[in-house]
């Protein structure tokens, strides 16, 4: 990925304070031509962060730039190239699906009516269906069509696969990969579907309690870690060892994920572990191990 290009999204030193929750300080970057996944538990700050990009709420500190456009001073230019779809989108005042999309299309010179048709067809979303009668999954689909049909350069999707049926989910994943066949377009999505993320995302950002816990290329992060099982007394001091994440013990059998740049099977053995076995990790195991420790 060419890092000399302007990033699709650049967040620097972002802080947003609520009475009971603080987001930040957060810095992250989404390269052009990539799919980046924003991960984290409910309440980690994912939606707050995504909303801030589109000017929902004013941050206490920091900058957000989309392809170089400042989200505060150049918000009109930003909204011309970036689209958002999330569960809160309410189009119920617009009658049926077609009427709502026609209304939105009028604001977007690049709206592709043929692509809109294809999206509706593939999502099996009837154009004449009343918006009030849409199921949760169908509302999600409508939001996705509205965001995708004008081919924005940055597509920001808050939990886009939640409530989608299997076929629609598969179609969406393929379409998102089709988006980044253009190296000038990017996708940022939040998701709890870690197998989807493992498959299609180039990069991931893991948020916890408003801060970035882990960020990087998905494939590199998976390679940097491995799952380990070993035998040792239950009272052994493995939990505090650097690079040992989410250590659990049942009987005298231990399980953990280790960061291979910091820790190794040899180091575990030196600390008293026997019968050490290692295996590759899945993104889900990586996620659980990292979030268990903090």
């Amino acid at each position: 990925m060419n890092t000399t290009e302007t990033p699709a999204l650049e967040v620097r030193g972002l802080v947003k304070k609520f009475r009971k929750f603080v987001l930040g300080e957060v810095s992250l970057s989404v390269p052009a031509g990539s799919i980046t996944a924003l991960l984290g538990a409910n309440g980690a700050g994912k939606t707050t962060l995504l909303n801030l990009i589109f000017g929902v709420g004013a941050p206490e500190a920091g900058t957000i730039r989309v392809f170089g456009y400042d989200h505060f001073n150049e918000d009109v230019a930003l909204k011309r190239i970036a689209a958002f779809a999330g569960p809160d989108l309410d189009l119920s005042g617009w009658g049926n699906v077609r009427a709502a999309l026609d209304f939105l299309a009028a604001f977007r010179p690049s709206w592709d009516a043929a692509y809109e048709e294809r999206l509706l067809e593939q999502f099996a979303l009837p154009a004449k269906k009343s918006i009030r009668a849409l199921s949760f999954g169908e509302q999600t689909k409508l939001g996705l069509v509205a965001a995708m049909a004008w081919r924005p350069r940055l597509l920001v999707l808050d939990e886009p696969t939640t409530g989608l049926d299997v076929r629609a989910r598969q179609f969406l994943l393929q379409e998102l990969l089709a988006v980044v066949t253009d190296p000038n377009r990017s996708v940022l999505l939040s998701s709890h579907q870690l197998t989807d993320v493992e498959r299609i995302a180039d990069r991931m950002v893991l948020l916890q309690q408003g801060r970035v816990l882990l960020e990087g290329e998905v494939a590199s992060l998976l390679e940097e870690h491995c799952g380990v099982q070993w035998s040792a007394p239950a009272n052994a001091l493995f939990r505090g060892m650097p690079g040992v994440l989410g250590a659990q013990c049942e009987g005298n059998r231990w399980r953990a994920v280790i960061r291979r740049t910091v820790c190794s099977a040899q180091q575990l053995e030196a600390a008293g572990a026997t019968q050490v076995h290692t295996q590759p990790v899945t993104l889900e195991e990586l996620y659980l191990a990292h979030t268990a420790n903090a």
Partner: protein
Amino acid sequence: MLPNAVPVASLLPPLSLAAPGALYEQIIAGIHAALANGQLPPGAPLPSVRKLAAETCVSVITVKRAYEELERQGLIYSRPGLGSFITDAALDRSRETHRARAESLLAEARAEAEQAGLKPSEIRALFLKHLNP
């Protein structure tokens, strides 16, 4: 006018997180197999990284890794602005890779047989049985 890229996606096995090996390793293995079958002749152009990613429903990084590794193995070469192509020596390089892997698997098989307590003559008989089924 360049010839059309070989429809590599249709030559690859379905890429799955449930299948053995990382996704990029599955792509590499699939290219090796297509080479051995003669479906990828020398000079054949490959689809761009982004196109193959979209066609196989895996991340761009995954395909990029596979291409980089295949380039390191000498199976493909890339020309900036033109794309990636199968090298003239790809079949030989692929055979070398397979030969090295076969040798290490045989060594592994021997170690396994020794652990099972088999005598050298019994191990030899076992190997011969698989050579002449």
